[in-house]
């Protein structure tokens, strides 16, 4: 088995004059759940559709499970399953029929596993496609994908429309799947989900890779969020390079400041706080939300 299940280099895909993908790079290693982050319209779904062999790359190389997804689509699809971001179902087919059909198209499905998943996601398989809510349509596609015995899952915003309980079920399923040695590409803009589930993350914007790495690697690039209660006003913080978004509130006896600070400015900032007299201090690693805001905020 190759060490990378997905290897994309310099991928370009245009639709008329629109450059959907503009030299995208993406690597997903075997055995990892890889987060694929980007704002709407950044090219996540286009990338996945190229990986599925539905769209033909204009240039660049795309390797999926060691093969060419455009030429060997059918063969490669034996080894993967896909959940679209916006699931539509056949209006006249029941959810159960959809799941069975999709399972049979990939050569049969494990009936016990199917039933277990249907129960787990509390899905009513006897309802017609047209009467399902968005979340329930999502569940149908999830059950069909998770019931398949495959080595790669392509998940395009798989939890949109799911309630928190179902999201937790979904996370457990993906954990178990990874334990079994499976790999997954999970596109999302729900940051908490990626933070919880993914080993590594790629962030894309406007069809290009902005950043890729483990969350630990990416955090060191980012700021620390600090909130401190002080005895007196902290002087000099607003002049210190590397301190951002300073807010302070002062009363007769106590003061509070909150700010974000670059890693190299943490130490001088703390000294200034100590000088003012600290009675309380909260510092947090940045959430992925903050990473996100920073990467895309600067580019817009």
């Amino acid at each position: 088995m190759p060490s990378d299940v997905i290897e994309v280099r310099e991928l370009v895909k245009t639709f008329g004059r629109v450059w959907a993908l503009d030299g995208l790079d993406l690597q997903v290693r075997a055995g990892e759940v890889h987060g694929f982050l980007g704002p709407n319209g950044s090219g996540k779904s286009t990338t996945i559709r190229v990986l599925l062999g539905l769209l033909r790359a204009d240039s660049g190389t795309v390797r999926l499970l060691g093969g060419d997804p455009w030429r060997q689509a059918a063969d490669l699809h034996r080894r993967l399953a896909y959940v679209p971001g916006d699931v539509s179902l056949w209006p006249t087919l029941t959810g159960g029929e959809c799941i069975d059909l999709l399972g049979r198209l990939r050569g049969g499905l494990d009936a016990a596993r199917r039933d277990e998943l249907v129960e787990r996601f509390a899905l009513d398989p006897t309802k017609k496609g047209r009467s399902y809510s968005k979340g329930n349509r999502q569940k149908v596609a999830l059950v069909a994908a998770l019931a398949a015995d495959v080595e790669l899952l392509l998940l395009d915003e798989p939890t949109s429309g799911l309630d928190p309980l179902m999201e937790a079920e979904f996370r457990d399923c993906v954990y178990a799947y990874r334990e079994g040695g499976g790999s997954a590409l999970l596109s999302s803009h729900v940051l908490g989900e990626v933070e919880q589930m993914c080993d590594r993350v790629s962030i894309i914007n406007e069809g290009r890779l902005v950043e890729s790495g483990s969350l630990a690697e990416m955090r060191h690039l980012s700021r620390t969020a600090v909130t401190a209660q002080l005895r007196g006003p902290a002087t000099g913080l607003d002049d210190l390079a590397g301190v951002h978004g300073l807010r302070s509130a002062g009363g007769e006896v106590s003061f509070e400041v909150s700010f974000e600070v670059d890693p190299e400015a943490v130490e001088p900032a703390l000294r200034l706080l100590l000088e003012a007299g600290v009675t309380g201090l909260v510092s947090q690693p940045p959430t992925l939300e903050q990473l996100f805001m920073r990467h895309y905020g600067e580019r817009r």
Partner: protein
Amino acid sequence: MSNELVAGTLTLWARSLRGDRWLVLGWGVALAVLYWAQAWSVDRLYPGEGELARMAAAMERNQAMIALAGPARSLDTIGGQVTWQASAFGAVLLGLVVMVVVTRHTRAEEESGRDDLVRSGVVGRFAPPAAAVLTALVVSVFSGALVTLSLVVYPLDVADSVALGVGLVLCGLCFTGTSLVAAQLVSSTRGARGIAGAVIAAAYALRAVGDVSVPALSWLSPIGWYQAMQPFSGLRWWPALLLLAAVVVNLALAGALLVRRDIGAGLVASRPGPARAGPALSGTVGLAWRLQRGGVVGWSVGLFLTGLAYGALGTEVEDLVGDSDLGLEMMTQGVPDLVDGFFATMLLMLALLTAGFATSSTLRPRSEEESGLAELVLSAPLGRGRWLLSWTLVTVLATLLVLVVAGLGIGAGYAFVTADPVQAVSFVLPQLQHAPAVLLLAAVARLVHALAPRLAALAWAPLVVAVVVMFFGDLLDLPRWVRWLSPFDHLPLVPAEDPSLAASAAVLGVALAVGAAGQLAFRRRDIG
């Protein structure tokens, strides 16, 4: 009714009318043309009084035509002909239009959840259905007014023309009420349309049986009441009161049902479907068939009945055609033997209708692409080529089936009027002679779909060309090369001409080549 119950009706009505303005306009004009065209064509086809009388005498005896159209009254007058040929079909057509309008603005809104949003505003309980009924009223009145106007201008007798229009409006309102009742009963739009459609079909069928054998049955049908007004043959107004009463009863019933149910729910709970897929639904062919099953059945029934009507005219051809050149050209394609020419024309007509089915079936995978369902299916281990071939296979087999059924229909009609059962199957093979041309049109549609998916509607253009060539080729004196564009022009006019294996094989060969080109082109393009 207090304002509380109907608050917001006018706003909703304005919104519906805005959304439906083209539909109102289009169907109003279409219905007026349906009536007016009868007058026009009878005048042109039977210019002499003797001809019309001869044709009328033949038609009055033709039980099949009476079952299809209505009681034969004053068929030797233009007004009588208009009433006979247009009233039943006009009422059915308007019924189907108001059914779509009413369900679209009531049940479909509830099903989509938009109705919840609307009702969260200052909107009375009866406002959405009232707005839908008012919209259907506009469709009906507009259609009826245009019918009356076009006939008065023609010119036909004013009072009778008004009666024909008023009766049509009342039929429209009657079926509006039926559709609204249906929309209360079940929770799916499809189900509601199924019920309303069945009621309209029953109304048509009751009067058909009534007009031919048991007169009392015609009095159970709104369409029967409409025709009982006897426009242009001793007009009487009192049957309109029956229609009016039916309108009131239907609307009252719908209102009573509405207050007894929850919004979004039906009175009849929706039936759950199977939790597991049956053995037939196990591959892309099974899926393509399952999704088109209803359409294939609908087209088959429709073309069987159309064939039946054509076949039933088989013994009256000479009287029907009259002496005018127009009649000869339109009905026999200029073939000297009238009966053979007539059947050749009707078989061609049925083949063109079948090509309509074949084209829409060919384009069905396009809507799978647009809805994103193709994407889901193609993530399974099957090539896009195989996926498309499965759809093509179903299209080809279903097209052949529809052709056979159409051939059986025309045969059954002819067998009925000639009392010769053998005739029932005698048109199947001649009808199948057109299969290569129908399949060629489907193949062209596939090529368009493959090369220019966003312009897939252009796939209908070749069919339009074929229709124009067939009906107006000689009348407009179209140049040779334009006629050459219609695949039907390359096949012999069976049964008037001998079938030609070489011609069939050639057209079929072109169809295969074009279809294969479409298949290959599809494999090379993006999905979606």
